[in-house]
């Protein structure tokens, strides 16, 4: 029986509430990240690697507690650490969980020229369908958050799926489940936004952070991952979170104006294309090496192929 449509209401012998309860898939989902109660423990990093069956890799000490400089094609969830001194001389150590923001207006999706390589579900999750990816990496330049990462071995681009495979079964994303302090929560966008607004208010009223606020940037229509920040006026401090994220004009212009014009122009190119097709054959998505060539499509939530990175040890 397909369970994708089933919503869990109660779980036997399970402490606390039902994860993801109340999340209707026709509603928009959201990850809530309270940076002010994140302790940088990296449980979410481990959960992400393990749930998605990522290979281990060798990292190098780089004068920081941060695991690696940036997310990678096989490391989708990274806590960014930043030491910061406030104007009054007090020290802060900011830790922000970096991952795909699942923008309401996704620059990656706008930029992508491959049919079906990037989809946005009605619940707001932006998901890459590697079987349709042609490896052009336009999505990389389309993203204001530097999230999609190219794997040169598979010639595909990868990023956080917001655990669409888990969410589709009524579960919370793996990172949320692993969070020990509860600084990560998952629910509907409206619920998470209300929670975040209340937390920001508490920080303003009781914790001496007059600029506390919620990062949910309107420039891209809001995001399905929102942050509570101590200081909403300085998001850059948190591992380079852009104050006003923008999709590069190339891609907005492409979608709105250039694409229709180009479509017309391309009619003239059709005979050329026909001759090219006859002589060269089509450009098709390439199966990842090591998967045994063409086969059934892996589908949503399929695990990226291991390989391309060395195991630290056997």
């Amino acid at each position: 029986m397909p369970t994708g449509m089933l919503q869990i209401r109660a779980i036997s012998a399970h402490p606390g509430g039902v994860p993801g309860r109340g999340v209707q898939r026709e509603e928009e989902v959201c990850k809530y990240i309270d940076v002010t109660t994140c302790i940088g423990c990296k449980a979410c990093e481990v959960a992400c690697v393990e749930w998605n069956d990522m290979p281990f890799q060798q990292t190098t000490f780089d004068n920081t507690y941060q695991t690696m400089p940036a997310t990678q094609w096989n490391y989708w969830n990274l806590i960014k650490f930043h030491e910061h001194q406030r104007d009054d001389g007090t020290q802060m150590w900011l830790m922000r969980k970096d991952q795909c923001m699942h923008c309401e207006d996704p620059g990656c999706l706008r930029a992508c020229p491959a049919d079906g390589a990037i989809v946005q579900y009605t619940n707001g999750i932006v998901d890459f369908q590697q079987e349709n990816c042609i490896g052009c990496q336009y999505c990389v330049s389309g993203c204001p958050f530097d999230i999609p990462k190219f794997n040169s071995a598979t010639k595909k681009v990868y990023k956080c799926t917001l655990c669409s495979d888990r969410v589709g079964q009524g579960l919370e994303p793996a990172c949320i489940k692993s969070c020990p302090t509860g600084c990560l929560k998952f629910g509907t966008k409206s619920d998470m936004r209300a929670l975040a607004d209340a937390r920001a208010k508490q920080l303003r009223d009781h914790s001496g952070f007059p600029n506390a606020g919620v990062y949910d940037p309107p420039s891209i229509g809001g995001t399905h991952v929102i942050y509570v920040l101590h200081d909403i006026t300085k998001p850059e401090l948190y591992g380079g979170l852009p104050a006003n994220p923008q999709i590069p004009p190339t891609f907005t212009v492409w979608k709105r104006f250039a694409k229709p014009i180009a479509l017309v122009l391309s009619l003239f190119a059709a005979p050329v294309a026909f001759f090219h097709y006859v002589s060269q054959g089509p450009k098709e998505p390439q199966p990842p090496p090591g998967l045994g060539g063409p086969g059934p499509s892996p589908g949503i939530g399929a695990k990226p192929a291991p390989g391309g990175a060395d195991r630290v040890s056997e």
Partner: protein
Amino acid sequence: MTNGWIDIKNTDMMLIMGGNPAENHPCGFKWPIEAKLQRNAKMIVVDPRFTRTAASADLFLQIRAGADIAFLGGLINYAIENGRIAHDYVVNYTNAAFIVKEGFKLPDDGLYSGFDPSTQIYDKSTWNYQEGGNMTGHAGTEASTGTAGASAGSAANLGYAAQGPAGVNGAGTAASKPAAPAILPPNVAYDLSLQHPRSVFQLLKTQYSRYTPEMVERITGIPKDQFLKAADLFTSIRKDGDMTKAGTIIYAVGWTQHTFGTQIIRTAAMLQLLLGNVGRAGGGVNALRGHSNIQGATDMAGVFDILPGYLKMPNPDDADLATFLKRTTPTSSKPGEWDSYNYWSNTPKFAVSFLKAMYGDAAKKENDWAFHYLPKIDRNHAWTQIWDDMYAGHIKGMFAIGMNGVQIGPNTKKNIEALKKADWLVVGEIYPDETSEFWKAPGTTGDEMKKIQTTVYRLPCAGFAEKDGNFVNSARWLQWKNVALPPPGEARLDQDILAQVFLKVRELYQKEGGKFPDPILNARWPYTQPRNPSLAEVAREINGQALADVTDPATGTVIKAGQQLPGFAFLRDDGSTLCGNWLYSGSWTEAGNMTARRGTEDPSGLGIYPNWGWSWPANRRVMYNRASCDPSGKPWDAERRQIWWNEAGGRWVGNDVPDFKVDSKPSDHMGPFIMNPEGIGRLFAPLAAFAEGPFPEHYEPIESPLLNPLHPKQSNNPVVRRMKTDLDKFGAPDQGFTIVCTTYRLTEHYHYWTKNNPMNVQLVPEPFVEIPHDLANDLGIKGGDKVKVTSARASYVAKAMVTQRIKPMLIDGKKTYQIGIPIHWGYRGIAEDEGITALTGVNLLSPTVVDPNAYTPEFKGFLVKLEKA
């Protein structure tokens, strides 16, 4: 923990110091966060480094490692000076009103009365209460100095080893014993107005009046204004006499690992008593235990000087059971008008039941319940002493199971050299480790290896998920776990290894005899599969069983012979019960395994969860909870009611199990601290409770950048002794060792294990040294450069982490730097085997010098030099 992890959510104020729970207890840290989110609780973090815990704090103060008593003493002074103490609580629930014997002297010069410099031992006879009665309103008038009453054997905490710092050096023997040990007077003199100059309160006030904000700044390096801010914030819960709020103190090994660690924790306990925070939801003194079962290891006497359940270990003067029980069973000592439950008066029942569990039918009334089978401790056998004895050639063999001995203790080089002198070593582990490969420690040449004659047996053991049994957490909860998967390959369960060694040894004694075979031949071994005892059977034995029908006089309940006991109230000293650990009695009853319960009901909303697992003692979640009520039995805070007096029923009732005599009415004035013979909390710890004094005093670490500003002539703890081997070297500032070094753990790693796990290694791949930005600038060190840290004992090489999170400090006016080193690497592991580390373990640097009460080494706050490697 007096309270528990979940209970932290009930607090209004947190002082986190000597611990880094966000990094080392990330799952438990959800509760401090919960208190912040739900109650707007404030969090003060005091640490040598700005840690990930500090990142969550409302106020962070950087302290010099080892200056904790100065800080806490300053808080006590501030609370008293500013009237921020819980007056009724202090008068009724502590010994503030008790009058101390004449001749007792405070340590203005660093020494209490009675010190003998030649032996480094105190004569503690003046550290006692005065015999007498109610002296309220007679301030200053001297009653006759009554001497200790002639009551039967007393002295609550007179552990033999605590009589003095019983020889921590190799040749150490027991301290010469006082002719007649002093005992507590049964009828204590007291002054409820707290005005008597020798009342505990006045002495306490005088003692800590020296810990002014200026003095705190000189010692700790915390600027006066910051200290005052923290002091005001922490004590604000008692502003204007308010008793509704509660504050908690949370600590870990950052407090214990000093040559005055026990006294740091005591200072915290005293502060909490003064503020009326002990016994209350959201209060307490809460030790975060560093391993999943270290609490269980302590409860079950994984320490040389106790028996399970914190019974005292016999010493050679305990000629028979009666002598032992007389010495270790306290009699009450209190104001005549007050009552004291004195729960340790049940010691004989616990001890005889333990002997029955140990020796079964061989323990008979006629042979003193086989008391003479128990080993008697003649001197110190603590961790560092074991290695010292092995280095001296006295100890010839060692079982190292479940711990990496070479790495864990201080002064790694000495540990390695000690093992070279042993005849044999058995290591039970799941990975090859530094201990099992001590013979190829870095720097050992081929020729040297050939000379090592130690036979090493490496036994593959089962990992935690391959065993069932109980973990006991910091909150004193026993939680049964099931086997997830069988041990791989030839790996065996620990209990199987121990059982088979025992059976073999017993067989040898049977065949060959020996000097004293009786304890081995007669040990009780009732398990269904003697070679593979099930932990469930052992747990049932620990809980205790009736050997004959036992009746509870209070309720008339009868427990039949052979049945599991419902709790320690049923234990008897006539041989009709057996019990492996009285504290765990009630954990596996006729109703089954209480520790396997997983009930999630929490009717009070206080996070008590009475049906989840089982908490010692008696499934009680907050200890001393009688103190959550005022003297009339009404909760201090109506919102967080734990227990209360029910006048109609004539009983204490509530959401938690009362930690009290349930039918003792408030007018009886029984003290809430029932484990003390006084019934009250000890601001003044009398007699031999502690080796170095009844009130904590700030002493400098053994290796310190300065002389103690309070008393330069007595800079260190006077009863601490240094080991004397050629490998026990100590550094001083004039030798160039000027930087304070501390060691610690990271979230990403677990001790010396996870360096074998690729996921953890990916998160933090290699060792590093955290260095203040300014110091790095001075030395031309950039982040990622290799640096060499050198102590008087050895050198350590790793990469530099240059950080703003450790600032230079002004200590007694002098610029002082601190550095920090995480402990997790050695010479076996993924990074080590790949050759990307220098193969140095951090404990090469640390000194073998220990706290005189708990024998914990001083891993925090020793002196080093730093240079570019």
